[in-house]
């Protein structure tokens, strides 16, 4: 394995990890549901993408590599869909009945 590839792995994975951190910070610090959602979906998809990217040089091809890409695709697809649906849900009334903000009976 060449040094360049190893270096690439190190950098990509470190970046990916930082994106996860950013996503978490966003989830914890942002003021309302929608902004948290946007921060989160971007951060975790990018984070996972970078980690997959960084791992690609480290695995056997084609099976190992394709599996990694499949994981990323699945998460990307699901993340995009769920993000959209969650945004809709957060805006609609359907979930307000289940927030803690509703006063108890």
């Amino acid at each position, binding site marked *: 394995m060449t040094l360049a590839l190893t270096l690439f792995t190190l950098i990509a994975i470190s970046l990916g990890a930082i994106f996860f951190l950013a996503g978490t910070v966003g989830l914890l610090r942002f003021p309302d549901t929608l902004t948290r959602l946007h921060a989160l979906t971007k951060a975790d998809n990018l984070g996972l993408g970078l980690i997959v990217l960084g791992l690609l040089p480290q695995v056997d091809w084609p099976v190992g590599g394709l599996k990694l890409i*499949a994981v990323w*695709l*699945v998460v990307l*697809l*699901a993340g*995009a*869909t769920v993000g*959209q*649906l969650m945004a*809709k849900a957060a805006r609609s009334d359907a*979930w307000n*009945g*289940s*927030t*803690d903000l*509703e006063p*108890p*009976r």
Partner: protein
Amino acid sequence: MSAALIVDLGLTLLILGLGVWTVAARSNNGAVVGYIAYGLLVALVWVRLAAVDVALTEAAIGSGLTGLLLLGVATRLPRSARLTRPPTGLGTRLLAGFLSAAVAGGLAAVVLLLPDPAPTLAPSVAANLPATGLGNPVTGVLIAFRAIDTLLESVVLVFAIIGVWSLAPKDGWGERPGWLRPAPLGSALTLLAQLLPPIGILVGIHLFWTGATAPGGAFQGGAVLAAMWVLAMIAGLARPPAVSRRWLRLMLVAGPALFLTVGIAGIWLAGAFLAYPVAYAKPLILVIEAALTLSIAAALGLLLAGPPEHPSAAERQP
């Protein structure tokens, strides 16, 4: 303290924290979401316990499918039931707390006092595994050494289907299961339900196939296939089949029936019920596993689809 122990300690604390949350949460949805997260973490613990086969099952069934099942009812509870009602009386809670603490304490003591070296069947399994032609010892136990448990368990799923179907409301019999009736949905979900299943089906088949030599098998593969089917049903791309369909029932019993047939044949071909003739052990096991995967996928999917309902029930009922 080693690094691994610190990680495991963190994992344990998280799991216990989420466990407490699912018991203590005020909102039902919150408890269910907590349980889903809990299931994800438990799957990681199984990896730490060197039980990847179990981790796969937990990830697929314990967290994913159970999560959907629980959500299906949590979101339908009437508003009044969503918030905590007057709690159980203090006396009951104290008693329950005492009892639970005693049980937990007793178990903790047992954990600390388990015999050392631990008794194990691992060498015995390893010694006899070659006779089955399999490489994955867990599959060997499931399909050969303790085949009867697996056979009866696949029958349990048929029982469960009968049980759930028998709850069909009036006029429901013979119709399609009613829980997954899709609401009108946006294009995003439709797209996902078109793109995800091809990947999922590949993964499911891969898990079944690889189960002979590596972690995986009929249950894990079947669970993933079931999830994909249910996803298609939620998105309205597939409708749950009517329970009166003959092919559906055949599919549900195909696995156990084939397992049973091969088992009976074993009485004459290999000298005992559920024994395999050595020369044909592996192909026979693979065929059984394939049929089981199919039946398990069908059964799990239908358990999530609920009892049959008359189409007009959609308007009448939640």
